């Protein structure tokens, strides 16, 4: 079974430029998460989707960040414009609904460097 796929793996951009990250979750997983992870820190949730609906986006900086999950499968996270402080690893995770099966499986992440 294929895991969570993310692309690109690395991205270097100048500040004020836009950037987008893509995520393809594990087949059949209805819940999708975007996390931000700074060096030496644990993942911090940006947004959580249940199918197409964003059910928790309270930590998403909506002035510059946006996300979408069309058709309840793939998802895209966008930053526009990027700032120096956005340099981090952006992780995507997915899980299937259910008390005993709600384990998150993570992708490899996208390492963003803003110059």
């Amino acid at each position, binding site marked *: 079974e294929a895991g969570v796929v993310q692309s690109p793996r690395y991205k270097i951009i100048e500040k004020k430029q836009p950037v987008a990250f893509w995520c393809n979750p594990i087949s059949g997983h209805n819940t999708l998460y975007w996390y931000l992870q700074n060096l*030496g820190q644990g993942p911090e949730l940006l947004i959580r989707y249940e199918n197409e609906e964003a059910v928790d986006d309270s930590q998403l900086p909506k002035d510059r960040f946006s996300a979408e999950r069309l058709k309840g499968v793939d998802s895209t996270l966008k930053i526009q414009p990027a700032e120096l402080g956005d340099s981090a690893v952006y992780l995507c995770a997915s899980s299937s609904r259910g008390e005993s099966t*709600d384990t998150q499986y993570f992708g490899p992440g996208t390492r963003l460097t803003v110059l």
Partner: protein
Amino acid sequence: EDQVTQSPEALRLQEGESSSLNCSYTVSGLRGLFWYRQDPGKGPEFLFTLYSAGEEKEKERLKATLTKKESFLHITAPKPEDSATYLCAARNTGNQFYFGTGTSLTVIP
């Protein structure tokens, strides 16, 4: 406020020297305590889920245990390939996950 705290931040062990990692949590209605392993440049890899106090799970040299306030990841006779950062996360009744900052484990041959 829901939160998870891990200790120690870093741990260096000699190969074969057993030890434990701690994860203390305060969440409103625990709905799962998760352990992950993260290697440099990779995403977290799922290890265990624990749901109730007293529960234990094992995998090779790792054993995870859970009480009402904390979880332990016991590492028995570690090998250099066990070197990684170990993350724990707690899920609350609102299906929100709170991650700790991790314990960086180094096992010296």
